[in-house]
């Protein structure tokens, strides 16, 4: 879809919205276990994936993100019993709107990473980074910001 040439030395910027209890803790564990992953991701911590508003994602793209990740507890493990189900329902709808708003679906990722899944976190970030590298920089929304 997008045929942007990858600029020399360009590195994608990825924003990750994660829940405090599972994925944030999983990322912490990756740290304490001294695992390594690509440095392109910036985490924004929220209490629960249920708190994450689709507008956050749009805003992130506006502000120069080339990719966005939303990650929380596994279904059934939500710290708040069912917040992640709400999130899931919301995102199924949102994902189907992605094309409509002109964002390649490969730029938005969803995952479940539990507090113990440091390895999954590391693999996830590396995989997403690669994928978004292939898609090239996301320029369409840049202009929108002021």
């Amino acid at each position, binding site marked *: 879809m997008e045929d942007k040439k990858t600029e020399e030395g360009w590195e994608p*910027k990825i*924003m990750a919205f994660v829940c405090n209890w599972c994925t*944030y*803790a999983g*990322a*912490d564990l*990756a*740290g*304490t276990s*001294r*695992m*390594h*992953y690509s*440095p392109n991701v*910036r*985490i*924004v*911590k*929220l*209490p*629960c994936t*249920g*708190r*994450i*508003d689709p*507008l*956050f994602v749009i*805003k*992130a793209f506006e*502000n*120069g*993100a080339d990719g966005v990740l939303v990650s929380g507890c596994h279904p059934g493990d939500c*710290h*708040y*019993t*069912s*917040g992640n189900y*709400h*999130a899931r329902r*919301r995102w199924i709808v949102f994902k189907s709107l992605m094309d409509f708003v002109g964002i390649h679906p490969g730029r938005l990722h969803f995952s479940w990473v539990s507090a113990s899944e440091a390895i999954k976190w590391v693999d996830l970030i590396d995989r997403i980074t690669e994928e978004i590298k292939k898609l090239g920089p996301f320029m369409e929304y840049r202009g929108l910001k002021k």
Partner: protein
Amino acid sequence: MPRIGVFVCQCGNNIESTVDTRKVAEEMKDLPGVVFTCSYKFMCSSPGQEMLKEMIKKHDLDGVVVSACSPHMHEATFRKACEKAGLNPYRCEITNIREQCSWVHPDKTKKTGTLKSMDLTRMTIERLKRNRPLKTISMSVTRRALVIGGGIAGIQAALDMAEGGIEVILVEKEPSIGGNMARLSETFPTMDCSQCILTPKMVEAELNENIKLYTYSEVEKVDGYIGNFTVTIRKKARYVKEELCTGCGECWEKCPYKAESEFEMELKERKVIYTPFPQSVPNIPVIDAPDCVMIQKGKCGVCAKVCGPKAIDFEQKDEFIEEKIGAIVVATGYELMPNERFGEYGYGKIKDVISGLQFERLASSSGPTGGRIVRPSDGKEPETVVFIQCVGSRDEKKGVAYCSKVCCMYTAKHTMLYKHKVHHGQAYVFYMDIRSGGKRYEEFVRRAIEHDGAMYLRGRVSRVYEKDGKVIVQGADTLSGTQVEIEADMVVLATAMVPRGSAVELAQRLGIGYDKYGFYNEYHPKLRPVETVNAGIYLAGTCIGPMDIPDSVSMGSAAASKVLSLFAKEKLAREPIVAHVDTPVCNACWDCLTACPYKAIEKEGIRDREGNIVRWHAKVNEGVCQGCGVCVAACRSKCIDLAGYRDEEVFAAINAF
């Protein structure tokens, strides 16, 4: 203009080796609103914290960013330090540059780590600029507890709490407390008589001044939140005035009508006015209204005539009592899966096929046969008894997938009780695995086999049928790889333990989680095994999952200690991370109300001068809200927000990206 201080930690070499903390500090200086930055060796050390406090005062900071380790590590530390320096603790934010930077991006040139640390710190600063000071929510506590279910777990919890000096209300739906344990004969692994160890506890519960017993009662409604619940209890009509009855027993002696005894499970009848069993607590009868001739047809009245203190009252109605309490312990226990589900075992059709609990009654000296083990069909002593384990348990097709945990043990116990009473008898046990994890449990099972001669056959039973007065059991012994057939006199099914039929309904009333079977969910199965997601509500015993008496008792005590430690606090403090509704904007669509997993959102009406409701809006009950933020994302009018994670704050962080 805000006055923000940024403190970048080196964590010895942990951060410093891949992040140039001085450079980070230097860069942040130029951001608007930042008035002080520094890099420091160990921020969490005492000197570090002192320095932080000093700088807050010296530079008159109104907000602090500490770029250090994960907030899960030291957020509390730094917030406390800020508080001591006179700063609102929620004006202190942490940037995680250790777990998220230095440790995961080992670039020795420090370029990567430094860049990312600057990004993250900048995001935190921007977010902090929009942060509002928050106040911990402090709530009063009603120092009374409610226990639902008067089995051994509930009794233990009530006794421990009463002992701790708090008032306890114990609600039991049956006419007597005691639960399933009251049915048992002797108990593994020590073989104490169940009644002998249970009855003293029941009496203690009755006599303890701090315990208020409501038997034949159920919890109808639960309102409020941790520290401040209001419950409505339905006290079912007993048709006997409790304050007058002396428990003399004249009435049930003389009542001319009988009905099936629930307690004896079809093995015996009881009178229409009855106590479930002789040691009932309280020793006050109830009239089983559907079977009472007086209540149904207006004839009889014998019990009223013979009752000296005139305690019988046919006009009694259900009563509703409201109680204010601060915590709830749920201990509603288990029941057995209906065996009728297993047509191939002939339960319900073949009289001599009985359940484990029925066997307990047969073996119990206070049971229908006075402790003689006989066949229900003809009262003869059975010479061959076959015990079938895992009936319904570990059977994902017709029963439940889980293991009921206690049946291996009680089956071994049953073979022993049987052997001790019928010396020439032979017990056979069909098992799949013997699960005897527990102190002295394996030894107990070995004793049943080696000492009392129980014959264990590894395999399942496919069919049970009657032939010539015998019960034929057709099964497999997988160890020899053959089909086997046993001509038995009696068959005992070790049926799955399942939650009470009413468990799910109660869970919904209480707002606690339950699994697909109806067992209640712990907050955390290992680390918080007696708490629930609904603060102030605790669990004990077999309503959580199958367990034996020692475990049920431990959980009762554990739940009690949780309540006691909750009540030890003067006021309950809680994080102010709760949702707020901007009421004038709310259009009462109730999207938030359906979304909230905790039922924390209420409808509030606005009244005009005449008192008519003119408008509705949503309102968050701060005591109940857990701060998940689901409502915020659900609200399309954007009029609900979450303290600490307000839209504005999150957007600020994103904008700084």
